[in-house]
């Protein structure tokens, strides 16, 4: 019925499965080096070939999926866990100093050049997956705070909220029981999109060496390693690049599909 959702779900599902599977099984040990066997093209033994240390790329892509997905997932979760309550609070106290502070804080975070801050964070704490998560997570907070506040504000104008207020419910309770459930669709859609952006961000950070550290593979670092080797072994750069593209593409398609499915406003507009 919904082409986007099916295709997107299939693509991202594929990589999520690979990530989960990698905990139990990979065709080769992803850290095992075999330098004489380096730069093999995809073949029957090494399905996606080997890298400059003779490691099995297929195994590395599987574990890399794990890294990407874990970092992105946690980062987005941080964004949601902090951003959504902030957005709800700001909306509930619209116009108050609290709202003002939250929104100004948001603007401020938005105003910071994210990549530079990410580099700074890693300069302070050293590179690593956790710091990549923090760096990406911080910039997800205002995104969620903002869309939650926006959606919540229009909900607060709705008569059913008025009815709940007449029924004597507190603002916190209304936010929790009425506003939150009605913004979840929006959050799911935005969450999917942020998830895909986070995967791109993680790849970018790893690419400049600030993401997960060796020997744990990550797609971005595989690309960085492959950089100087494109002319000799193009598959080293192609494969992780395509993995990133397919995952992000899958998530975006899924986001679009979910939006069509969940957002009744758009469903009506389609007629």
């Amino acid at each position, binding site marked *: 019925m919904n082409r986007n959702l099916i295709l997107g779900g299939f693509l991202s599902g594929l990589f999520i499965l690979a990530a989960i599977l990698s905990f139990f099984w990979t065709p080769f040990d992803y*850290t*095992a*080096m075999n*330098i004489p066997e*380096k730069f093999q093209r995809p073949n029957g033994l090494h399905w996606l070939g080997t890298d*400059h*240390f003779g490691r099995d790329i297929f195994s590395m892509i599987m574990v890399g999926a794990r890294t990407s997905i874990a970092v992105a997932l946690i980062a987005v979760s941080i964004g949601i866990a902090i951003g959504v309550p902030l957005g709800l609070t700001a909306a509930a106290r619209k116009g108050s100093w609290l709202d003002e502070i939250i929104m100004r804080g948001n603007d401020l975070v938005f105003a910071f050049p994210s990549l530079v801050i990410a580099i700074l964070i890693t*300069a302070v704490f*050293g*590179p690593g997956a956790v710091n990549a998560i923090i760096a990406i997570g911080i910039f997800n907070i205002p995104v969620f705070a903002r869309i939650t506040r926006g959606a919540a504000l229009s909900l607060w104008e709705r008569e059913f909220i008025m009815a709940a207020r007449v029924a004597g419910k507190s603002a916190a309770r209304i936010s929790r029981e009425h506003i939150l459930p009605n913004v979840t669709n929006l959050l799911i859609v935005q969450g999917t999109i942020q998830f895909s952006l986070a995967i791109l961000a993680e790849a970018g950070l790893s690419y400049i*060496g600030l993401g997960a*550290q*060796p*020997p744990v593979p990550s797609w971005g670092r595989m690309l960085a390693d492959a*950089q*100087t*080797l*494109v*002319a*000799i072994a193009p598959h080293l750069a192609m494969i992780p690049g395509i993995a990133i593209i397919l995952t992000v593409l899958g998530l975006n398609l899924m986001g679009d599909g979910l939006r069509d499915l969940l957002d009744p406003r758009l469903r009506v507009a389609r007629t």
Partner: protein
Amino acid sequence: QTAITVAMQLEPPHLDPTSAAAQAIDSVLYTNVFEGLTKFQGDGSIVPGLAESWDISEDGLVYTFHLHDGVKFHDGTTMDGEDVKFSLDRARAEDSTNAQKALFAAVDTVEVVDPLTVKVTLKEPNGLFLFNMAWGDAVIVAPESIENIKTTPIGTGAFKFVSWTQGDKIELARNADYWGAAPALETATFKFISDPTAAFAAMMAEDIDVFSGFPAPENLPQFEADPRFQVLVGSTEGETILAMNNKRPPFDNVKVREAVAHAIDRQAIIDGAMFGYGTPIGTHFAPHNPDYEDLTALSNHDPEKSKALLAEAGMADGFSTTLHLPPPSYARRGGEIIAAQLAAVGIKAEIVNVEWAQWLETVFRGKDFGLTIVSHTEPMDIGIYARPDYYFQYDNKAFQDLMAELNRTTDPAKRSEMLKQAQEMIAKDYVNGYLFQLAMLSVAKAGVEGLWVNAPTAAVDLTVVKWKQ
């Protein structure tokens, strides 16, 4: 063709070779713009520079330098004894910011005898004094140029500084008033390309004529195969070592250090990280040095022996430590391989990638590390093993005495003997894991001649470079 574009990976932070450690400064300016009393040649030998000749007193304490006549700075002023005295005094002054102040430690006084004669008196004899005076940090500068030296360097060399577009390039032009033989080139441009891919692409696209210190050895075979290019493979003064924190357990145990040394497969590292470029070393000494001794057999790749040694040291199950890796690819790539090799004998080395600033702070000054990989590019630097406070913290009285003795010795034969002894001492103490001598890799267009193949010091000496007609 009289113009050349030379690319390097790193850009100089500023242009004063006498107040920073950055090699990029020397690479651009050494012998091209600035000259010292003596100077390095491409083969590592020391020849007269601004000093035409010199006399050394019997006791080896007094050096009398006779300067070239008619040498002018680029601003038109004459270079004379006063400038020499100024330069040397400035470098050893209390508030000096010379990164190699130790080079001048032996100097007691500097006197100007006449405009073309300078007398330097040492506190004690120093066999390396002429060698020291050839360093980029000991070049002769004019007092009036100091204020702006970091942005407009004024030297005596065959090329004048023209302009610097920060982040991009530095341009030099031939000095018409040069006192020595005029160079073949009229203009030279140094371009800074930090990214290895960009380096490859720029060379392939022929945007540049020479890439000195090519950062991606994996691409060299392509240049070799291409008639448009020549590849120069030489050696540097860089002993690449797996440094161990000799004061921190378990590396305070020589058995553990020996175990680490035997766990390492140098050839795999050279092949994997350097794509075959680099000479295995077994001690902290450059293989091209006549006094070099091949001690690699002392630490051959022998995982079984390594395990056995660990067991002897009471660590049959191995142990965990950290492996700090600075940015260059010899460290980052080599580190990944070493971590895998150590894992094979049960040593779990957690990789910590650091920037140079962090490396200096945590590893070098803080001595907070287990293992680290670094290339020691200073020439003739075995003396660092005599400094117990040096970051790997090797504290051996016998070695320290040997070095003190060596400094006082000027007799070449004796010096050679002592150097060999020193090499053996540290190799047998397994102070560090000795990996390989860093190769000097350059790519140039086929028509460029006269480039240094080796790098006895950081320099791209353009005075002898020319295009084949």
